[in-house]
């Protein structure tokens, strides 16, 4: 089974592990399609993607994947309700102009959403800002403030608060520490928000199966 399995980024593997085999998935901002390829080949998923860069799209389609060149902030509105079992947004939410609207769209067109993002509450980032007084950086947030695509960074606590406000149900939450070990969020977010370099959430709307 393990032989021939494509290797993917650790956070993508966490996401892939959540996805049920045989489901229909949309990966928003799918890059070169490596997660889609994994899902299609290993989990026999009906895998589709949206990607803004031509290079990413061409790589995906050339690999036989169904990928659309488009902009998530405008194109998600086209899809009917509950088109997908999962809509995935990996490390992209923080680069959106309207993250809240995007979240709503993910949960409208998908029965569930899987969202991952870098945690701006990580202790090293806090410490770095406190100590140097400059915009903090780490492996996930490596860009200078003036070139960074990340315009809406948030902490795990921020995200959980937004979900509570919007009535979004967190079915599962994981944080990944510096060593890359995934751990469940826990009731108090203190640990997760300090030690998590990034987080992965499985979400659904408060209404089950699309019933509002």
């Amino acid at each position, binding site marked *: 089974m393990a032989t021939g399995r494509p290797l993917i980024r650790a956070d993508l593997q966490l996401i892939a592990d959540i996805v049920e085999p045989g489901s229909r998935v949309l990966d928003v901002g799918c890059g070169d399609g490596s997660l889609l390829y994994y899902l299609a080949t290993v989990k026999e998923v009906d895998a589709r993607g949206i990607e803004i860069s*031509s290079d990413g799209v*061409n790589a995906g*389609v050339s*690999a036989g994947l169904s*990928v*659309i060149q*488009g902009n998530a902030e405008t*194109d998600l509105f086209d*899809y009917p309700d509950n088109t997908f079992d999962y809509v995935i947004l990996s490390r992209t939410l923080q680069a959106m102009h309207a993250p809240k609207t995007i979240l709503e769209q993910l949960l409208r067109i998908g029965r569930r959403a899987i969202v991952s993002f870098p945690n701006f509450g990580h202790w090293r980032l806090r410490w770095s800002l406190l100590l140097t007084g400059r915009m903090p950086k780490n492996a996930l947030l490596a860009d200078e403030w003036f070139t960074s695509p990340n315009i809406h960074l948030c902490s795990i606590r921020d995200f959980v608060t937004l979900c509570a406000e919007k009535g979004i149900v967190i079915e599962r939450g994981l944080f990944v520490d510096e060593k890359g070990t995934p751990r469940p969020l826990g009731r108090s977010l203190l640990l997760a928000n300090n030690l998590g370099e990034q987080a992965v959430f499985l979400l659904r709307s408060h209404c089950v199966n699309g019933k509002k």
Partner: protein
Amino acid sequence: MITGVGHVLARDGWPHSFPGQRVALGRDRPLALDCGVQLNDFSVAYQTYGRLNDDRSNAILICHALTGDQFAAEPHPLTGREGWWHLMVGPGRTIDTSRFYVISVNVLGGCMGSTGPSEINPATGETWGLTFPIITIADMVRAQAMLLDHLGIEQLFAVIGGSMGGMQALEWASLYPERVFAAVPIATAAYHTAQNIAFHEVGRQAIMADPDWCGGEYWRHGKQPHRGLAVARMAAHITYLSEPKLTEKFGRRLQDREMYSFRFGADFQVESYLLHQGSTFVDRFDANSYLYITRAMDYFDMAERHGGALANAFRDTPVRFCVVSFTSDWLYPTEQSRRIVHALNAVAANVSFAEIVSNSGHDAFLLDEPEFRRVLSGFLAGAAQHRGLRVPAPAVEA
């Protein structure tokens, strides 16, 4: 298995040197045209490449553009020039004829063997001329479907076409969703814009303004409206290119001279190029065909037939789509492809969409565009896998 709807035609009245086949259709079951006329005896000329597999599942229909024809992958029988898609279709090429059975059909209304205004109306024994009924893109597709009945092909693996060929691909997916596994509309649109219609009207007026057009009955007088048709081609040809491409190819360079002639000859290289394009075109294309086919394209508006919403044309479609556009195509710009993609998303269709970076304008789909080939070849390989076609990995291209 010949189903009986078609009759393989003798080559009477058709140049013996032409490769390919010609069948008569509509004798048992007339073709009901959108304009209301029943066409009950018409011919369709086509060419095939490759071999049909045992379960008849590897057929790809290639649809040609306005001035194309069935000779996609071989030298043109009239001009001797390479087939219009020889870069794409052939053994080991993107549309690999060692794996797929490629069918390339001259459209209804065309002038390379399919029934059109320059053919004889069997009912009268006279050339159709302007008595030929106005046809639509959907009519072309319905005629192609009758050809497939004749060939005993239930489902196409794919229908692929650029420009007007892309319109046919869209129409195929909409009219016969169960007969198309995958559709690839390239550099195309789901309707003709006012600008598209405007350019076509310039072409038609140029033809009809030529005294040799003789009110559409030039064949009676042994004439051909060559000047009008050449001007139509020149105007249209500009829309197939792009300003950067023209600048790159010609700039303001002069043709065989150092200085302006201070006359109206072809001083500039671009003028000479266009004149050449016009004059070679008239040797292979019929002026009335040009009128009919441009008209068919102008009438094309898929949403209109579906309550104004393009998505309705594809509701519950099982077809896998691959939509392709080119950045510098201003005839059918990317925005038009995006409209198609949005409509397909609205019905949750399985669709890929790639915009290829190229400065070659609309004609990019006919040219050597490696990125385009990679995308198309990947899509076909993926679709073949889903279809369960035993197609080996695509050939590695240099």
